């Protein structure tokens, strides 16, 4: 199946180039800047225009992205030359994920029925961290529909400890087999 350019591959390449921790943070912010610039609809139109010579586009990029590292500027030029401006956001996102992965950080989206205070949030973060063996940064959300308990989503994994989930499981156990 034919696919477009994969942001994952670009992010991996950048990740391999930036080895030092200081450099990694620099790259992270640079990538976000690039993403912002390249995905701006007006600017993207100019960059995609075949009427404008590449040298002109490159100098425009250098002006817009003043202050980013020379390698990062190269990346922006490369993406422009290949017409892959659209994936810049994906690269920044994917790079952030790779960075978190290396540093042992995971993001969790925790849904609760009642609002969590700071203490509760720390508690949940610690418990989830123990479970995953990593540092977990918790983002919370409220949803009364889950009745009680909490639902945590970490990456592709879902921990359903809600009362709603348990009631559903119980109903399936009791009713499901006789249907």
């Amino acid at each position, binding site marked *: 199946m034919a696919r477009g350019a994969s942001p*994952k591959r670009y992010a991996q390449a950048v990740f391999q180039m930036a080895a030092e921790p200081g450099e990694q943070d620099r790259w992270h912010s640079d990538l976000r800047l690039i993403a912002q610039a390249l995905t701006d609809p007006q600017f993207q139109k100019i960059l995609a225009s075949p009427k404008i010579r590449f040298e002109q586009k490159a100098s425009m990029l250098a002006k817009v992205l003043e202050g980013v590292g020379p390698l990062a500027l190269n990346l922006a030029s490369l993406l422009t030359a290949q017409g892959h401006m659209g994936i810049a956001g994906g690269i920044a996102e994917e790079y952030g994920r790779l960075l978190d992965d290396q540093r042992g950080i995971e993001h969790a989206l925790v849904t609760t029925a009642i609002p969590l205070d700071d203490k509760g949030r720390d508690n949940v973060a610690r418990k989830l961290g123990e479970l995953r063996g990593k540092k977990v940064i918790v983002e919370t959300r409220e949803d009364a529909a889950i009745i009680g308990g909490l639902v945590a989503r*970490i990456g*592709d994994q*879902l921990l359903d*400890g809600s009362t709603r989930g348990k009631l559903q499981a119980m109903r399936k156990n*009791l009713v499901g087999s006789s249907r």
Partner: protein
Amino acid sequence: MAVRGQDIVSILKQQIEQFGTQVAAVDVGTVVEVGDSIVRIHGLGGARYNELLEFPDGTMGIALNLEEDTVGAIVLGGFTGIKEGDEVKCTGRIAEVPVGEGLLGRVVDALGRPIDGRGPIKATGSRPVERVAPNVVSRSPVNTPVHTGIKAVDSMIPIGRGQRELIIGDRSTGKTVICLDTIISQTDGDLICIYVAIGQKASKVAQSVATLEEFGAMKHTIVVAANAADPVALQYLAPYAGCAMGEEFMEQGKDALVIYDDLSKHAWSYRQLSLLLRRPAGREAYPGDVFYLHSRLLERAAKLSEEHGGGSLTALPIIETQAGDISAYIPTNVISITDGQIFLETDLFNSGIRPAMNVGLSVSRVGSAAQTPAMKKVAGRLRLDLAQFRELAAFAQFGTADLDRTTLAQLERGQRITEVLKQAQFAPFPLEKEVSILYAIINGFADDVPVDRIAAWEAGFHRFLETNQPGILEGIAGEKAISEDMEGKLRSALDEFKKTFTI
């Protein structure tokens, strides 16, 4: 399932005590695209091939394409309740169907859910629909016949238990009838039948079920139906489900027969799924693994060795050809997988030869080893006579006036054999009746009977044997062989009958 009040209370008590004790992490993904029985899901990094997925509305799916960021899945049921953004969960299971004696007499869908309105199924267990076929060590050669009750099949293209015999032919040439005849013929036997209807009209399936019920054949039969209006994923799954139900009986040491009606439509449904999943298309737009689709299914038919219980699963796949083209893609595939084929022709059907079997193109590669001695005794000669007849028949078209007497006799004999091999639908013969009439024909007892009177002569002969000489029929049925003593009795009975029958 519990029915008494006390049981329900105790189950509820147990449930309440255990409420909320276990929380397990499950893999989840998000639906990004849905349509035509296909769902594309983002995430689900932990999904495995063929794993069952659960959608929020309770519908199940099967993960078929595992890609870098997405999973392509088929939906087992209606997909109208699924929308973009829905959360999909992995279940850690693969598709299973209920199995066991409780299914006998029932009509179920591809997931084993009843569709005959007769209440829940009392299954003894469940089995995964996909399984690797038995290996070489656990198999034994085919050695027991499947009695189809069709004279032409039992004598010339015998089917053994554990064999895979393809039934191939154009539309309305009697493919299904051969299978239904075979099921009806097992009414007093020990063979459990599973009829898998794939992509057929619901009215046709209802008709087949009604026929089976009329002849009392449903009590040893399971019907698995994925009709034309059912989701294509179910049509794809149905033969594997039927096969799993048969395997359960095979592993209990019993004999089962599974009919796939038909695999052309199965290939079409798989082609649809594959194209929608954006798998590369090959010849006639079928995907690259369309051969494996059928080979892995038919390989599961087997005769197990005594150490493994000695059970068997016989497969009768059906293929519908277009304008008699047996060299099309799917027909050649399935011909090469099976142990022989019964080829039905429109021309023969229209000229009144029913079953419309083309004896020249039909073969059975292993079944003759499983033939009973009685049938073997008549079948060899029958095949020879018929082959000679076919050769001469081409000449005889230009007139029989100046042919010599031997040739003429061969032609006459051939015509009578052809006449005897004709058989009405849903009227299977027991072995002893098949053997006795074929014996009479190949030994020239009917040579002086006019061809158009052969059917009446045959019926008369059987009636004569039943009323005057029941010992002969019982003897052949019991011994499954024609001893010399029995042969003498049969000859004298024939002589006697010929005196009474007025042409």
